[in-house]
């Protein structure tokens, strides 16, 4: 299984990458939504994207909109991993097409359980 971790914080990318590798995922990284789109266009297509909200160039919500507009990318599960914890933000992200939502801080178990909810991974 392939995951892409999209976060402008290198430290957060490292944490999430290690968690995903521990769950037997191969992991791509991107520092913002635009870079992630470019990586996905080059292929291969990830099974799941872990997406921060606040990033330069293209933020997480724009990324979710962009992925959901793309006919061939419908299979990609989208999980927001963000500090944005207000209910209104959750509603916006889900309405845009995100499948799951984790508010930082989180435990590795939380990520694993959300992946199970999405039917991605073991």
């Amino acid at each position, binding site marked *: 299984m392939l995951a892409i971790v999209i976060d402008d914080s290198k430290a957060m990318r490292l944490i999430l990458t290690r968690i995903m590798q521990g769950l037997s995922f191969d992991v791509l990284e991107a520092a913002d939504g635009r870079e992630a789109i470019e990586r996905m266009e080059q292929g291969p297509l990830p099974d799941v994207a872990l997406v921060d909200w606040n990033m330069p160039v293209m933020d997480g919500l724009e990324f979710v909109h962009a992925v959901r507009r793309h006919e061939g990318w419908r299979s990609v599960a989208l999980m927001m991993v963000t500090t944005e914890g207000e209910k209104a933000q959750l509603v916006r*992200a889900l309405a845009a097409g995100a499948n799951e939502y984790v508010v930082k801080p*989180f435990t590795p178990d939380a990520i694993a359980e959300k992946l199970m*909810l999405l039917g991605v991974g073991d």
Partner: protein
Amino acid sequence: MTVDPGTFSYVSGLVHAEAAIVLGTGKEYLVESRLLPLMREGGFGDIATFVMAARTRQDDGLRHKIVEALTTNETSFFRDREPFKAFADVVIPELTRLLPEWSPIRIWSAACSTGQEPFSLAMLVTDHPQLASGRPVEILATDINEKVLQKARGARFSQLEVNRGLPAPMLVRHFERVDTDWRVVSQVRDLVSFRPLNLAQPFDLPCMDVVFLRNVLIYFDAETKVSILRRMRRVMQPHGYLFLGGSETTLGLDDGFERVQIGSTSAYRPLGLGGQSTDALTSRSVLSRLGANQ
């Protein structure tokens, strides 16, 4: 800091006597981690002194706190998923077909800890299309530990807690933000009633259609498991479903249950109804609800 053998022996004996829970050798770490906060709260310098105070005091307040601290278990929303899927996809449709419209569906979350299990069930009940007609549903949630029940009654969960196992759409639908926490909305909250109950002692409850007794039996010795399962069977409807934890079974403990496979999980049903028609089951179930002799 470590727990000396004498202290461990006293604590494990106390917990076994009060709650029939077995703390075998190797669980010293658990005793230490659970008693440290109580020790600090009481102003004691070490665990041995704290436990000695509990042993020698007239009132049993400290002893009760020790038992409570060691009976709090790991929990999360929709833990292990499959039993909840079986509940929503198979058990609820079957019960709505079997029972008359006026008859309440009674569900028991036995050892509910801080409430994630009964509220998970309540969310599924609220969302279930076959319960949209307003059929009464009662969810009883019990635990030996008054402290966790107090938290459960508040129905407030931290961000870390709602991150665990709760699908985001359900968080949006069934929770409201309260400061930095999330609170279960009243429509879901009101389906659940909480009360203290010690499974290791005799209990008197109305007959249940569904019992969740998950990851509880593992803590008890064999004799207590047998008596708990026997009492469970007495408060279950003939058509009832008992859900145990993944590593738990009635096999070798109580031959009054049969194991049924539901999807990739299993449940246990009271035996003794082989060959009866659905009508016969319905009549018997309704009679038992009315308190008639069977």
